[in-house]
């Protein structure tokens, strides 16, 4: 028995060691899992949309009138938004929006036939009608939303479906969100204000994915990070026809004609992939005012790289009067296949003369006033009247002022003055909370 005692003792010791090792392993696994979850939570917290994602949005009605005036184009119209909660967990909203456009953009207007240029027949007016319905549902700290949007013009129709989910955690300091958008467009072409029977309607599919993280950083500071990825592609392309450009627009190229150049149709790729990342922060000052900063960077597979920054200051100047001032800068590079004047016909596989694909920079200033009405309107808790004015100045680096060229002459083709655009954007709206 004495001989066996050390054996038993060793066996017991081995068993204890094995058990301890297993426990250590389990603990390591537990610690590892905990670390992974916490690490993932911290990782997610870097990424962002709405700070109060678990609270239903305000019940309100907004009536807006808008005007855009710049570059020879006037766009105006009304817009209405109604939002109503049902049962404390569901919010339903409807949005109605109209654009009444008085004229085409300069790059479309002056890319048509010489006859059009002389007669001015390229001027036109059209209307765009957009309708949206959205439903938002709250469960615990999660928010789910569904949206459906239609946009109708006489030469362009689209449908967009949106789905989004957001989750707040970390004591509601952090909100993580994800969104998915799917759209189907029909691109047509007008001739003298009516659908061109010779043009086959092109179909376009759109996808958009968004990831957002909103973080309350201090009791006076909120930050918001958004990442978007989008993809548009044509589903029924014809040779030389892409759904991604305006069928009305043409490119010009150097020729032996009397005027020194001629026109041909644009040629675009069949897909357009975009990526954008934006960071926003807003800070509450010691008095009732806030200062906000936005930055964004954008790239796409057409060679456009853009960046913008904005600074916004909001302050209560008198009781019930809020004033807002902002300044924004934007710049972008040109698409790889953009040119204001190509050296000859069919100079490249892809050809574009859309000034929004040229290289340019812009500056904007904005002023706004919100006045809370002191009197009570029956049925509403609060009412405001709002007036906002923005002025944009866009300087194009490689898009020339063809308008002046046509009027004044004296320029060699391609050496016209660079185009610049000044635009005023006005929003006047009444808001009612109930």
């Amino acid at each position: 028995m004495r001989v066996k005692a050390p054996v038993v003792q060793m066996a017991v010791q081995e068993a204890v060691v094995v058990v301890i090792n297993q426990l250590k392993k389990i603990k390591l696994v537990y610690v590892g899992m905990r670390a992974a979850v916490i690490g993932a939570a911290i990782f997610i917290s870097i990424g962002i949309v709405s700070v109060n994602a678990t609270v239903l949005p305000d019940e309100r009605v907004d009536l807006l009138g808008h005007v855009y005036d710049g570059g020879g184009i006037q766009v105006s119209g009304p817009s209405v938004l109604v939002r109503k909660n049902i049962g404390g967990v569901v919010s339903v909203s409807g949005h109605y929006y109209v654009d009444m456009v008085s004229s085409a953009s300069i790059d479309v207007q002056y890319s048509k036939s010489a006859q059009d240029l002389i007669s001015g027949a390229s001027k036109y007016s059209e209307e765009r009608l957009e309708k949206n319905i959205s439903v938002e549902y709250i469960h615990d700290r999660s928010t789910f939303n569904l949206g459906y949007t239609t946009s109708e013009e006489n030469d362009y129709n689209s449908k967009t479906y949106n789905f989004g989910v957001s989750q707040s955690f970390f004591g509601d300091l952090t909100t993580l969100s994800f969104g998915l958008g799917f759209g189907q467009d029909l691109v047509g072409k007008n001739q003298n204000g009516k659908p061109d029977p010779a043009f086959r309607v092109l179909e376009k599919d759109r996808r958009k994915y968004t990831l957002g993280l909103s973080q309350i950083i201090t009791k006076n500071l909120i930050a918001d990070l958004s990442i978007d990825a989008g993809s548009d592609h044509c589903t029924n392309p014809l040779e030389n026809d892409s759904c991604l450009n305006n069928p009305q627009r043409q490119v010009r190229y150097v020729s032996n004609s009397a005027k020194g150049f001629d026109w041909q149709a644009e040629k675009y790729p069949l897909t357009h992939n975009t990526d954008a990342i934006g960071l926003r922060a807003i800070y509450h000052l010691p008095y009732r005012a806030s200062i906000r900063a936005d930055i964004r960077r954008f790239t796409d597979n057409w060679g456009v790289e853009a960046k913008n920054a904005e600074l916004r200051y909001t302050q209560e100047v008198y009781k019930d009067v809020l004033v807002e001032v902002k300044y924004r800068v934007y710049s972008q590079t040109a698409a790889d296949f953009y040119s204001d004047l190509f050296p000859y016909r069919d100079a490249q596989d892809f050809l574009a003369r859309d000034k929004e694909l040229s290289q340019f920079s812009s500056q904007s200033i904005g002023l706004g006033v919100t006045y809370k009405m002191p009197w009570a309107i029956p049925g509403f808790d609060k009412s405001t009247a709002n007036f906002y004015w923005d002025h944009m100045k866009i300087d194009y680096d490689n898009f020339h002022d063809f308008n002046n060229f046509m009027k004044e002459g004296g320029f060699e083709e391609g050496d016209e003055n660079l185009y610049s655009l000044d635009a005023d954007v006005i929003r006047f709206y009444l808001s009612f909370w109930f």
Partner: protein
Amino acid sequence: MNLKRISFSLLLLGTLSGCGYIKPIKPWVKPYERQNIADPIMSFSRDPISDSYLSHVRDAREGASGADGGAGGGCGCN
């Protein structure tokens, strides 16, 4: 490279936190401290109808879009 460094730092931070070397992070802004945060002037979109319109104007005038809080739609801006 930067992404690798950030990922490693986050993983290390998470691991140290999980092992008890760093005290678990707790929400540092208490609910009763969020008066300023709840002020409408701290909202990224105080009036959605107005922001939606301005976003639409910019999408039509600029080559870039997205990552600005807007849902996006088919505006026929091509």
